[in-house]
């Protein structure tokens, strides 16, 4: 059976993609950020997962506002990255696992998550930056099949934090019921606090982010007491992306240990966080 061996929460700011491309991992601006990924790199190297389910949001590459699915999942053999219009160099295509995708879709729909299914899906920096962060080298990325799961955190109303946590639980069940010997990781991306638009652009909230990271393992429900509108005020409209981390957290169940955590302000306009959980049950 497939095993969900662990999960990572990570920011997905485009500037990170540029920094990796330009070899700035040890640069003084970037080192406090990238140092936080060393435990993740070591863990990935040791565990060598077969499949990554990557939870992210599209920023206007694949989806336009004409049709905005709340949750959409890829069911393709290959996912292309493409020009987003402002200069990030597209990465090579990513290999999918359509059979596993269809199993997850079937399981989710029968679990009452009516997810949008995509046989073609361009993946943008929200997807590619976490891939580069987890597996900086192309040959590493070539070893991992991917299943993109896209969440609407662009146009209100977004799914609630509670819905995200429950979707995660349903994904956990879907993985556990797949009859293939696969090691799977789930990545929840975006956040943490940041604000790109309005006079308050540049807003971050260390105190709230820190509490979020602190509670994510044992008390993920803590975030549910805030509506997405309240979160927009507290962590900035784009900081609300942290609800996607709850999908990762929900999938992992309660038998997990935290292996590492890092938090750093700023990366571009963003407070960047990373956390690594391992499933103790497998």
């Amino acid at each position: 059976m497939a095993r969900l061996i662990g999960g990572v929460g990570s920011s997905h700011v485009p500037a990170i993609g540029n920094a990796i491309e330009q070899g700035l991992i040890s640069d003084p601006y970037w080192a406090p950020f990238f140092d936080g990924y060393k435990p993740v790199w070591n863990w990935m190297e040791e565990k060598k997962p077969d499949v990554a389910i990557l939870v992210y949001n599209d920023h206007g590459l694949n989806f336009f506002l004409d049709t905005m699915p709340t949750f959409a999942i890829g069911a393709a053999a290959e996912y292309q990255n493409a020009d987003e219009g402002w200069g990030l160099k597209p990465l090579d295509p990513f290999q999918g696992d359509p059979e596993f995708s269809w199993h997850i879709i079937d399981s989710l729909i029968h679990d009452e998550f009516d997810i949008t299914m995509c046989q073609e899906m361009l993946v943008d920096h929200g997807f590619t930056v976490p891939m580069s962060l987890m597996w900086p080298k192309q040959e590493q990325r070539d070893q991992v099949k991917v299943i993109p799961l896209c969440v609407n955190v662009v146009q209100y109303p977004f799914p609630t934090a509670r819905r995200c946590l429950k979707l995660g639980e349903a994904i956990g069940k879907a993985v556990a019921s797949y009859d293939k010997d696969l090691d799977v990781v789930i990545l929840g991306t975006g956040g943490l606090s940041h604000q790109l638009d309005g006079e308050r652009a540049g807003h971050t909230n260390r105190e709230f982010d820190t509490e979020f990271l602190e509670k994510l393992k044992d008390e993920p429900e803590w975030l549910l007491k805030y509506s997405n509108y309240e979160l927009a005020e507290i962590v900035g409209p784009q900081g609300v992306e942290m609800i996607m981390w709850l999908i990762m957290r929900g999938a992992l169940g309660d038998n997990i240990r935290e292996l590492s955590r890092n938090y750093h302000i700023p990366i571009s306009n963003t407070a960047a966080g990373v956390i690594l959980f391992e499933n103790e049950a497998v």
Partner: protein
Amino acid sequence: MKSLAGKKPIPGTMVFEGRMAMKGYALNKMCFSFNKAENRDAFKADEDGYCTKYGLTDEQRDAVKKRNVLALLNLGGNIYYLAKLTGMFGLNMQDIGAQQAGISLEEFKAKLLAAGETKNG
């Protein structure tokens, strides 16, 4: 999540909900087209003509001309789509953050660095 109608506005903050998405539809659609290099070239060759082709309002066309991000946001632009427009003007997310906050780029960067050094940033 209940409707945002009647919610207390968040100072200095945009919330991109249905009414704004309707107001800015043409503007965001134009910006979406800038994913393709040939469309960026067509815009650069005739900015106002390209805006007209997409059915932007006079106010939106004026805000494009002035590279005024706050005005574009108020006219329904979504920040992720506007980034594709401002990218052509050589403005990245930090440039437009500074513009909106009404401070210089250096001040904007310094503010973010300062947030990294305090406990309550």
